[in-house]
């Protein structure tokens, strides 16, 4: 994290957190019809379709459906964990590769 950069990474992180804090505060005042807040926009769109087109019947059902909200969020968490794991592994391997290269360059000079 050396050098002159336009905006320090810490500031970017602060910005991310600030946007969430703002979203949580502003958003929590807006409940939908069922009184629930922060419902998924995907399900909001589905609800809108059902409301405006009462005659529409989904003509295909999911092959497999998580049996409860808990199972569903668990599977989502699994997806995120798998992605984060691979991402972390890749960054770690590449960092190690750079260190090894740097060491290989330095050693002849030191000897």
């Amino acid at each position, binding site marked *: 994290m*050396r*050098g002159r*950069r*336009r905006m320090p*990474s810490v500031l*970017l992180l602060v*910005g*991310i957190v600030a*946007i*969430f804090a*703002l*979203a949580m505060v502003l*958003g*929590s*005042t807006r*409940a*939908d019809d069922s009184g629930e*807040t*922060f*419902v*998924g*926009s*995907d*399900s*909001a*769109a*589905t609800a*809108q*379709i059902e409301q*405006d087109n009462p005659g*529409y019947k*989904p*003509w*295909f*059902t*999911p*092959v*497999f*459906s*998580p049996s409860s909200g808990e199972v569903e969020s668990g*599977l*989502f*968490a699994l*997806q*995120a964990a*798998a*992605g*984060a*794991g*691979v*991402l972390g592994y*890749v*960054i770690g*391997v*590449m960092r190690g*590769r*750079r260190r090894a290269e*740097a060491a290989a*360059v*330095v050693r002849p000079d030191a000897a």
Partner: protein
Amino acid sequence: MHIAEGFLPPVHAAAWTVAAAPFVIHGGRAVVRQVRDNPQTKLLLGAAGAFTFVLSAIKLPSVTGSSSHPTGTGLGAVLFRPPVMAFLGTVVLLFQALLLAHGGLTTLGANAFSMAIVGPWVGYGAYRLVGRLGGGLEVSVFAAMSLADLATYCTTSMQLGLAFPDPETGVAGAVAKFLSIFAVTQIPLAIVEGLVGVLLFRILRDVARPELISLGVLKDEQPAPSDPTRTEA
């Protein structure tokens, strides 16, 4: 942006599948070619796929009182060009359709079209445009990430508007209605995604310099990474 299983009329579902298929097949070949011709970028390719995998799993709250998820396709589009993301994004969508009942097989074509095709292309276009206008690499990456995200949700709104036109205001009215559900919610999330993208890009710039140079993202005129006195612009 996931249109639920069965929630597009059969004709629309089929049309979007036909429209998306060539991009995805071409993307699959692009991935194979990338791995074969440029094997040292294999790890970065994994990183791009993993990034989409993580981000599209995380639903975040937004100012509208609903929550939504980023797409994470912009980074891969910048690093590997959009066709690669057409394939990787579709793999993510297929996983979610099969295991999470999120999205669906009948709507896979439409969802792939928005998240894996339009998003990456818009992101890549923004990246090139901002770069040409002299915006600098980080601003370009920010634009790519956030606009790929936003464009995906706008495409979904358009797809739903076409499928379910409003009885009074027609397709345009319906598109506006779905945009009000998706796009407004997505704006803060797109900004967050852009910031996260810049953070990850900074890490990659430190650890993957030779790979990024071989991909043409960084120019090979910088000092060696071990030189602490100078840094890239």
